[in-house]
């Protein structure tokens, strides 16, 4: 990926994703953290587009930014008297250390490993290939995932039922 547009897009989207993630970690207000999280989701969707994964990018916006974020907002609104602050426990410094070690290890391993590089270039159209893979090769995981979604939905309803 050497064309100017992709390079500019990558750096802009990387800055957006990481900046929004850091904002979600540092802001004092829980709702602001959720909004920053949504921004980060959208940045990741943009990164998917630079990787020519159009279907996954749109699914990311639809499910993460449109559904999961809304779910989080609902959870905050359904706990009206709980704290709205987004501060840390006493575990803050150790957590920072663990996260830094983890991130640097992952990055170092990722960079140091000699991954088998492909030369086939970007995907042209992914949705059809995804559909075929899901309903042929991965039909069992697909069905299990649907059952899992149903069970999770029923479980969530049962847990929060007031009666």
């Amino acid at each position, binding site marked *: 990926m050497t064309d100017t547009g992709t390079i500019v897009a990558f750096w802009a989207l990387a800055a957006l994703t990481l900046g929004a993630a850091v904002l979600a970690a540092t802001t004092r207000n829980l709702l602001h953290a959720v909004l920053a999280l949504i921004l980060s989701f959208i940045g990741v969707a943009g990164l998917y587009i630079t990787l020519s994964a159009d279907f996954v990018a749109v*699914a990311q916006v*639809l499910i993460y930014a*449109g559904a999961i974020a*809304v779910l989080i907002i*609902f959870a905050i*609104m359904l706990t009206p008297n709980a704290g709205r602050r987004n501060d840390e426990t006493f575990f803050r410094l150790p957590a920072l250390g663990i996260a830094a070690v983890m991130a640097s290890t992952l990055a170092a391993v990722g960079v140091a490993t000699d991954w088998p590089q492909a030369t086939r270039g970007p995907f042209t*159209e992914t*949705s059809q290939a995804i559909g075929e893979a899901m309903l042929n090769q991965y039909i069992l995981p697909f069905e299990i995932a649907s059952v899992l979604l149903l069970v999770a939905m029923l479980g969530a309803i049962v847990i929060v039922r007031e009666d």
Partner: protein
Amino acid sequence: MNPLTLSLSKGTELFLAEWWDIRDLGNPVARFLELVDDAGGPDWLPYVISGVIGILAITGWLVTSQLAFVWIERRLISRIQVRVGPNRVGPMGLLQPVADAIKLLTKEAITVQAADRWVFWLAPSLVVLPALLAFAVVPFGEQMVLADLSVGVLFVIASSSLATIAVFMAGWSSNNKYSLLGAMRSVAMFISYEVPQVMALLAITIFTSTMSLSGIVNWQEEYHVWFIFLQPLAFLVFLIAGAVEVNRSPTDISEAESEIVAGYHTEYSGIKFGFFYVAEYFATFGIAAVGVTLFLGGWTLFGLEEWIPGWMLFLGKVYGFFFLFIWSRGTLPRLRIDQLMSFAWKFLLPISLVNVLLVGLEVLLWQENGLSAGLVLPIFAVVNFAMAGLLIYAWAKLMRPLSQRAPRVRLMQEVGAIVYGQEAEA
């Protein structure tokens, strides 16, 4: 060579046109881009310029249409309600929208003291974006599309789901209980009606086996049938879900004046309120444009597109679709929130699921047996119309209130006895 200029030059091949040929508005743009390309400069320049031209053209068209439709809607609603409507500013009140715009621009945009300033300021700017985004994938003419994504239908749904976030930001940052109530109502409604809407659009993509909006129009042109005839139930579901998504009466419970002041934009004034007002119109135009593309054949009109530019037909259809919204606003009373929510989950979702099953079965029969389209599509249309009527009737009968469902109660009502719980009626 970027995809856009590629498609534009394909369009010029088709019409072998000069820049002044407005049958395809892509022609002048393509000529201009060729000029830019010949003049040298970096390879991304034509791409950026074509994007900017497209954005400016679409936004300009939306703003003019919006101004016109403010007047048309107010006059039409007045006519429906046996009033006159705005008739003072200019001839027949034609300048009323301009006067309104100037009023909104010159009014003070108050920021509430207790508001969350950044979010309060961001929300009106963000609320317009999702409405505009949908137009990026809508084809205005045969080659006139800003970005012909292969996942166009999903893109439309995803961009409209982002509007939820902006509405929530507005309602929450106002720090007003009515704003928050309106915002939460709006969020609940959005995510409820998204599900049947996706099911309705899924039924169409099963038929076309493409999610690109241009591809869907081409399919309708190829088989000489609009999806409103092939998929009446999907159209109905899309229309209702669309009306809910754009927050217009009769489904405007998130800004219901009689219940929660003005909902999520209670605390907004001046041009900030203007943004919400404009966003509602933009979103309605967006739903109308997507609906026309998916169900009414887009730029085609059974051969008439040879004589009239396709984009004019498209705009005419969009305005016609918009009229449906005005009509329902003038005719139907506002629903309650519980009615709306149970309508989405208990009525629209089951019948659209059955519809998807039916469509899957039909396409399977059609593709597996290699039948000719001219034979099966009329049969499918008849079957789908019959199924739509049957489903709506049967499901409505099944989901009636309990009091009407019990045979004993009906019997007692027939003999004129007083039924417990229904004394008021009896």
